[in-house]
């Protein structure tokens, strides 16, 4: 029976860097961001991480106390849900080729 073992998938999918699928790159404008984490909530990868409040400059002191969202470009496929759902429209979708220039 050991010649035909039960296949068990054990390798995490994180080795598959899906960032290469991206055509448009979401860029968070932290001076406008209110850190509501709606982008994090609706990310289907999930490729948005929660990072410590001090890592990015904030719009004001109150918002600066909240933990911030950060996009992991290794995995973001560029679907743009975050930019569409953002209530203050602080996520810009930038054409990847423009960033190359």
């Amino acid at each position: 029976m050991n010649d035909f073992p039960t296949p068990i998938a054990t390798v995490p999918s994180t080795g598959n860097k899906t960032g290469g699928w991206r055509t448009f790159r979401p860029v968070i404008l932290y001076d406008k961001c209110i850190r509501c984490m709606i982008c994090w909530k609706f990310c289907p990868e999930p490729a948005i991480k929660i990072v410590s409040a001090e890592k990015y400059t904030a719009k004001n002191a109150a918002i600066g106390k909240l933990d911030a969202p950060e996009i992991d470009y290794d995995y973001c496929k560029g679907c743009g849900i975050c930019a569409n759902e953002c209530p203050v429209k602080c996520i810009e979708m930038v054409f990847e080729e423009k960033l190359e220039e």
Partner: protein
Amino acid sequence: MKNLTIPEEEYMLPGHTACLGCGATLAMRYALKALGKNTIITIPACCWAVIPGVYPSRALEVPLLYTAFEVTGAAVSGIREALSAKGIEDVNVVGFAGDGGTADIGIQSLSGAVERGEDIFYIMYDNEAYMNTGIQRSSSTPKGAWTTTTQVGKIRDWKKEKKKNMVEIMAAHGIPYTATASIAFPEDFIKKLEKGKKIKGPKFYQVFSTCPTGWLVSPNKSVEVARLAVESKIFPLYEVENGVYNITYMPKKEVKVKDYFALQGRFRHLTEDEIREIQNDVDEAWRILVEKEKWSKSLMKVQ
């Protein structure tokens, strides 16, 4: 300090192979946030069978068992019984299937599991067609939709039949708890799962999951479309607990079916008259649902 409305823990890994803006991945992400680490997922042939990637890749932090298309209900029953035989009761056994694997091919084994009163969760992520195999119509495809088997060309062969109502079928089984949910309302979905965790017996959820590829929707509008489905009352959010109906979200804005259709390519062939006919169907279904809520609540008071 964190500003979160849903649990922070993630049990789904990035690097999976779902399409851009996939609603099914959001359904899984929210379900696992609510159910936690002590969960076993069972998946038949569906989009989620390919999302984790090719063997030996995995995209979940919980065990996942692949089964044949028609046996999700039987498989979860078996896992539940095996765990009980070992004296393990604190594990959530979950069947996670698409609409084809639930409303068409898997309905007999699901019906059996619910009839036997197995202590399981069954989550149907409803992307309204067989998306994984190339957008073929299912019984959960809504009236008016284009699919590759209800094509619109010289002959306008769009789907003329109504969407099968799975929650009603489950309610007719006398299921302890069944509910609809939407990827656009994760707090509502998670609350319903938390409620299900406290109920012994079968729990059935129908989660509206946008498929940008099959619905011809721009991926960035994925969540917006799901929200419009609820706001336009074409997919109302409600629960049925031991026969009592409860509408969990009352649409605030006056959104017409037409506004929901406008974002999707699969409905673009419909004429004004055809859209009006569908709007009438939706209004009638909503009226009946509101009445059911009222009636079932008053009936329970009598008892």
